[in-house]
């Protein structure tokens, strides 16, 4: 009995399966487990999965054994930790009644002979019969694990961050209102519908910069998924929460969430793509902290091969873009530009992903700006980036882009306009979003502009901005930034 190559357990069974695996791994002595199922093929794949993790196991099939005596003989011959008993439903009614009666009367003998886990797989209707006809045997059950599939399997559509991010601001607000109204009228009873909507609401709040509300809703969704035992959905929402924490600069919490609660679950569930995405987020955090080699290693070895294997073009383009980011940080600009232009933009254009296209264009503009090609960079910012973020209602990206436009204006000699943009259009947005990291950079950049203009006249303002930025850098535990801000402070003081 081998697991089908492309088989995956249903999301609604993921929590149950993980707990069962943990139990099989860690508990000792005789344990009677009853497992309900309604699809033999699905059951066989589950058994194959369990046996893969613990090969010290055997399967006893009552279609072949036919009676209690034969089962007991076969059981006595097994010296394994895990015995799966199948196809009780194949016995005729009288045979089954005898079998149940025998299980009841021979309970102690069976427990002694087995010594480890006895996993009895039963269709739902036979569980009630077992409970009544073999009441004492049933009384020794550890737990009933439910692996019943819905009659009409329906794939649940997961909320996608991209789908939401590509909505414009008014559409987002409309959707937020719609979900809030629905939730306020629905019962307190945990349900998948409500959990999915709470997650979507969290993502929507994040996209419009309402980070606190976003975090609250994501945590509510996680709570509800946990209650419903939806380990997979729970991990996915935690993944979204980790990205929110990263955006807020709370790297330690994000990393902890990824390493301790998300990756182990995705690994156990064999969710390769989701695992690669979570590894990508780990790489993002490492990159932010200056650990470029480690980040690059993850992108090349843990992310890309998975996306290639599954033919996921968008994700592949995305990972390539991230590799280009690292190349930029290493000063390898041409290589980075080539990746963005040849492996990123054509794919996003083909897929109609306007946001990622704008992000990629922004990265290209970053390099051009760094190289002093200000006109080209400004054109991209004003024509390819800003209008897209405005249309999408993404105020955070608008502010980031405006900050970069201010930098270009500064270099081009438009100091007053640059200061105005930074002071009136950038910093207030980051403050409103609670985006600590961007707020820190924004304050430092603004302080530098003020310093370059007139240090003495702007002394008090500069000091305040740098002190606040340094406090944020320390809170975010960013050593490079701390060093950078301290050196600016020394320069200003001198």
């Amino acid at each position: 009995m081998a697991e089908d190559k492309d088989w995956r357990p249903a999301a609604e069974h993921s929590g149950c399966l993980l707990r069962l695996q943990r139990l099989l791994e860690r508990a000792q002595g005789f344990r009677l487990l009853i497992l309900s199922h309604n699809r033999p093929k699905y059951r066989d794949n589950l058994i194959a999965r369990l046996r893969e993790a613990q090969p010290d196991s055997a399967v006893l099939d009552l279609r072949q054994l036919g009676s209690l005596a034969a089962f007991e003989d076969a059981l006595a011959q097994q010296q394994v930790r895990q015995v799966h008993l199948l196809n009780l439903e194949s016995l005729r009614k009288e045979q089954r009644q005898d079998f149940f009666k025998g299980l009841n009367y021979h309970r102690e003998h069976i427990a002694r002979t087995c010594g480890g886990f006895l996993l009895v797989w039963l269709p739902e209707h036979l569980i009630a019969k077992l409970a009544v006809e073999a009441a004492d045997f049933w009384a020794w059950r550890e737990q009933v694990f439910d692996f019943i599939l819905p009659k009409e399997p329906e794939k649940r559509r997961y909320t996608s961050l991209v789908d939401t991010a590509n909505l414009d601001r008014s559409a987002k607000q409309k959707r937020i209102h719609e979900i809030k109204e629905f939730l306020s009228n629905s019962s307190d009873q945990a349900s998948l519908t409500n959990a999915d909507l709470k997650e979507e609401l969290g993502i929507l709040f994040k996209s419009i910069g309402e980070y606190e509300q976003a975090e609250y809703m994501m945590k509510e969704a996680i709570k509800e998924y946990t209650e419903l035992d939806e380990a997979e959905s729970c991990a996915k929402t935690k993944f979204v929460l980790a990205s929110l924490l990263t955006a807020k600069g709370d790297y330690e919490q994000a990393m902890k969430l990824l390493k301790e609660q998300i990756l182990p679950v995705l690994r156990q569930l064999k969710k390769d793509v989701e695992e690669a995405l979570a590894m990508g987020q780990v790489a993002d955090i490492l990159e932010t902290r200056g650990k470029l080699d480690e980040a690059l290693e993850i992108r090349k070895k843990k992310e890309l091969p998975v996306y290639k294997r599954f033919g996921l073009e968008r994700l592949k383009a995305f990972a390539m873009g991230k590799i280009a980011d690292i190349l930029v940080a290493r000063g390898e600009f041409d290589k980075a530009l080539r990746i963005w232009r040849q492996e990123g933009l054509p794919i996003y254009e083909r897929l109609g992903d306007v946001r990622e296209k704008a992000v990629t264009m922004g990265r290209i503009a970053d390099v051009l700006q760094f190289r002093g090609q200000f006109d080209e960079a400004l054109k991209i910012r004003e024509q390819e980036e800003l209008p897209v973020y405005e249309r999408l209602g993404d105020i955070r990206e608008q502010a980031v882009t405006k900050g970069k436009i201010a930098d270009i204006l500064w270099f081009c000699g438009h100091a007053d306009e640059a200061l105005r943009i930074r002071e009136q259009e950038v910093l207030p947005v980051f403050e409103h979003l609670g985006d600590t990291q961007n707020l820190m950079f924004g304050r430092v950049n603004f302080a530098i502009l003020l310093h370059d203009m007139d240090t003495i006249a702007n002394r008090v303002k500069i000091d305040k901005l740098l002190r606040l930025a340094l406090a944020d850098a320390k809170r975010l535990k960013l050593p490079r930034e701390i060093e950078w801000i301290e050196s600016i402070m020394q320069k200003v003081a001198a």
Partner: protein
Amino acid sequence: MSSRISIWEAKNQLAFNEPLEPDDPLFVDTAKARGDFSRERLYRQLNVDKQGIAHKPPIKQYILLTGHRGCGKSTELRKMAKYLHHPDRYYVLRLDCLEKLDINNLKYSDVLLALAAALFARLEEEGGIEMEQVHLSRLENWFKERVEVHSQLKQFAAEVKAGAKAQAGLSWLSWLYGEATSKLGIDSSYREELRLVVRNNFSEFAEAFNQFIRASEDKIRAAGKGQRILFTVDGTDRLNSEDAHKFFVEDVHQLTQISGLFIYCTPIHLLHQDNCLSANFTGTVRLPMLKIRERDDQKVPKNYRVIQRLALLRVPEYLFDDITTLEYLIQYSGGHLRDLIRLLNIAVNMAEEERIDRIAAEKAVKQVANEYRRFINSADYARLVQIDLHPDAPDDFTDEQSAAMLYNLILLEYDNYFWKSHPVITTLPGYQKAYQQVIS
């Protein structure tokens, strides 16, 4: 300071499969937490006074010990047997039918042959007791004249003789009856024939065995090992409705032809189904749930403490987020020990971290409730609500439906004789709906 154990090490102490001996480190005396239940009442029935002296017990006494499945009957029986086995009291001989016999289609003949075999073996092992041949001959002859000559048992008799170390005396008798019991215990070709022989010649066997019991009781008393023999029979509570009826009701006259003192474990549902039981058995000892609640659902704190001690011996306090989490699990166990162990086990399975928190405990309650839900119908919910609203009058509800609910443990019986729904059942939507319908 002793080292801390992990949640999984604790889980391994949460086993269902063996009753505890009274000297087991995990044993907790729960008798006082069972309401008015007291062992002393049983001891009094056996004429044991407060000083622990047995006074002239009746020649023949059959006591039934009953209680819900998993409420601790076997453990309690061991505890009582340990106390009663004393020179001033009784010479207790324990038979676990699940160990020695195949209780599938168990017959009185199987039990009585097994009891005889157990008595012979014990006396043989016991130093200082010598049984003269005169006390053995009738049982030897019964075997010789009724079993050996039976055409279909000749081969069996030959096999038994060939394997025996001695051909006379107590050890010979012990061997003969021991072999017969083991053939009854396995599904051998001789089983039905042996049963037939015992059934057809039962009076002779009973007389011979009665005589042997009297003689051995004299010897036991003389050796200062007890005043009388007391047989305890465990495992007969496992019998299903049909088999239990045959064993305890239809065949009761044969069963009780043995003049001795017996405690039989009996399934609880039989008491609610067969009124004639009381006519044939001298007493019934009900082992109730641990009384953690009164009929008005008020907690009984001192009994909570007993059950809490039992739980903490297995899962130390530091493995709970808060002691109130354990209290919550105790509350939902309804005082049913095996369900408390089950709730603790499942709470460990549900725990996200290395301790049991309230969320894990709530999930465990939900899980166990769902497991029971499988065999409750809407009529049951309505009945449960009615019983809960009138806990003082279980007699008004005594019928097959209630008996089935007691058997399935969705209805629990407490001392002072009141019934209540298993607390986990009250969390189910079906129950809540039925409750709303009744009160509105």
